[in-house]
């Protein structure tokens, strides 16, 4: 009884009117996002697009349209990709893959591993283009000094570097990484330079006005200002690195997805060729998505304001 009597009733304080803070767990946010995506039109349209692509391919193959009859049907490619090789579990020809190049075979994983390893090395090397591009944009003298030889080298297609790369690098790996780096490096550097050029001069003026030194302008204006273009450069760089990876592997490799396409062609193993190609496409896409996620995080000032990036 006494307890009830002495119980104090909190007056409706000012803080009580504040909205309660709702905190969602990561998992819940993920679920909410997924649920939302499932109700969006773009998701279903995208899905329809993918389905239409495979159906079209299948029909073209079935009706033996010119050129398409040489291909393999998507269904048999898929079987080849997912079924175990002969003798792994059964000896039923209906349930086994012919070439053993797919999720059950070691070769597929080794190829992916090699190619991704090479791409990663090349990509990291080509990131040296970012400081170079920033320096070129920052100091006129550096740009004038570097730009001419740079422009001379840039139009040379990466593939034409192949012989030189093989001569220069005696090992088997280095020429391929070198080729990918060369291709990606120019894209990264030039886009970075473009990014610096795209910064509104008023920001330089404002920074000077507020008393920044040249170095502070570099750090606080040039680097963040060029960042959107740096990301564009990295995305393009990643793409062209894949181009030359396949080129390089075809010529100098013994493993890797590019090498596999060539190998499959030699053996007239069309499903294997298709699997390797789609794998390249898929991994390229994943890397692009990863880079875009990083971009969204780094360029929060852009994505938060609803600007497309």
């Amino acid at each position, binding site marked *: 009884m006494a307890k009830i009597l002495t119980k104090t009733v909190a007056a409706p304080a000012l803080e009580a009117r504040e909205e309660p803070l709702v905190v969602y767990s990561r998992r819940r946010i993920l679920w909410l996002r997924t649920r939302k995506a499932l109700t969006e039109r773009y998701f279903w349209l995208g899905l329809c697009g993918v389905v239409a692509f495979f159906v079209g391919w299948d029909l073209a193959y079935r009706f033996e349209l010119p050129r398409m009859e040489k291909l393999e049907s998507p269904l048999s490619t898929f079987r080849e990709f997912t079924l175990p090789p002969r003798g792994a579990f059964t000896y039923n020809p209906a349930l086994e893959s012919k070439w053993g190049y797919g999720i059950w075979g070691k070769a597929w994983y080794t190829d992916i591993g090699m190619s991704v390893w090479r791409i990663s090395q090349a990509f990291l090397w080509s990131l040296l283009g970012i400081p170079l591009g920033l320096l070129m944009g920052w100091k006129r003298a550096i740009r004038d000094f570097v730009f001419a030889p740079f422009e001379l080298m840039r139009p040379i297609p990466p593939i034409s570097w192949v012989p030189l790369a093989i001569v220069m690098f005696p090992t088997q790996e280095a020429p391929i990484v070198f080729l990918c780096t060369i291709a990606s490096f120019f894209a990264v550097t030039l886009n970075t330079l473009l990014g610096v050029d795209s910064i*509104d001069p008023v920001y330089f*003026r*404002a920074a*000077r*006005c*507020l*008393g920044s*030194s040249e170095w502070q302008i570099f750090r606080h204006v040039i680097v*963040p200002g060029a960042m959107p273009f740096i990301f564009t450069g990295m995305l393009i760089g990643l793409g062209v690195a894949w181009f030359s990876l396949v080129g390089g592997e075809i010529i100098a490799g013994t493993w890797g997805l590019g090498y596999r396409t060539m190998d499959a062609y030699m053996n007239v193993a069309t499903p294997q060729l298709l699997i390797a190609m789609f794998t390249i496409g898929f991994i390229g896409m994943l890397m692009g998505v990863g880079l875009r996620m990083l971009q969204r995080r780094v360029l929060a*000032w852009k994505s938060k304001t609803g600007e497309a990036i």
Partner: protein
Amino acid sequence: MTDLPGFLATVEIFKDLGRETLERIAGICEEKRFAKGAIVYRTGEVPDSLYILTRGAVSHPSLIEARGSTDGLVRTPGELFGIAAVVEEMKRRVFTVECLEETVACAVNGARLREILKMDPSTGYIVMQRFAGLMAKVEGFVPARGGGLSIRHAGKIYDPEGVHVVAVEDCSFDVAPGGLCVVVGPSGCGKTTLLNTIAGFDTLTAGEIYLDGRLIAAPGRDLKPGPDRIVVFQHGALFPWKTVLDNITFGPVVQRKMSRKEAETEARTLMVKVGIAGIESQYPGEISSGMRRRVEIVRALINDPMILLLDEPFRALDALTKSVMHEYLLELYDLSHKTVFFITHDLEEAIFLADLVVVMTTRPGRVKKLIAVDLPRPRTYRLLSSKRFLELKQETIEGVHEEALKAFEAGERELA
């Protein structure tokens, strides 16, 4: 006291306030008695209450000492002392107050008074402005800390590929320390060129410009921009990649004047004072254009510049936001004592803001007319319909219209 609201109505600064507001104020009044010789508060103390004298007399001894006059005496009932409590950003008392005889005064809590005034939509803000203006006057006994601008025969000729374009020619005028100078003229009359040379972005080809007697622009001299004269740009130049707080603290941090922490504290205080608190962690792209302008002005003021250069800062704003921004700028001006150099082609804006309106001719840009604006401060929008304002406007229009016509015809010729 029996009729406290009635007494408050006789207080000069509260005139025009409604009965309801006066009653609310009366509700927070607290009568205080002080003995002869008692010190009500001292210089540097944190201000909490405003005092309204009801009986007796007080003085500001240090003020009387400094000025050798009796200006600092408060002896008429209804006179105020301790205004600092009402003005939002005042963190210390300016002058000590001592009672000359036994004194009775109404103490009104400054923060609560502010709240009550804010609740009165029609006249509350005018009273707030009166307080700010009064404070500025009191602080004005401590004169503006320099920032006098002298422009002497300034000239600028652009000469790209041998084509002489005379942007500014033989321009001379002075802006007093703490003065608000507005330059008006048709587009292309060299207003912005002049501002750029003062800021140090551009060099002069003739003449020189001094800031407090220090040469800041002259032909053939590579004089750098600096934080003593800060520009607020036409389209705004907040770094979109920095949050509002990082933008504001940018100046003091890169100049190594304050540590980041100090700068942040200072920035937050300034933001509270100008009513933009709560957007610290947002990016400039997320806030309204009026807000962005305020943030930019705060970013300039935190550097404590000698002179503030504003290049048509409100051009892109809609009429309503613009009028709010004018009053906001004037409020800051009344309190900060910075010299302001303002460019516009809006005549009403020019007269409303300025102490000195400089009318410039069209190309080549020369000073056509200097108009001293003698309208009282603090200024409110009521001034816009006053007789003196209209006279000044007429005078300015006559000067500018002719030039605008010339500029227009020149444009027609160029097109033909």
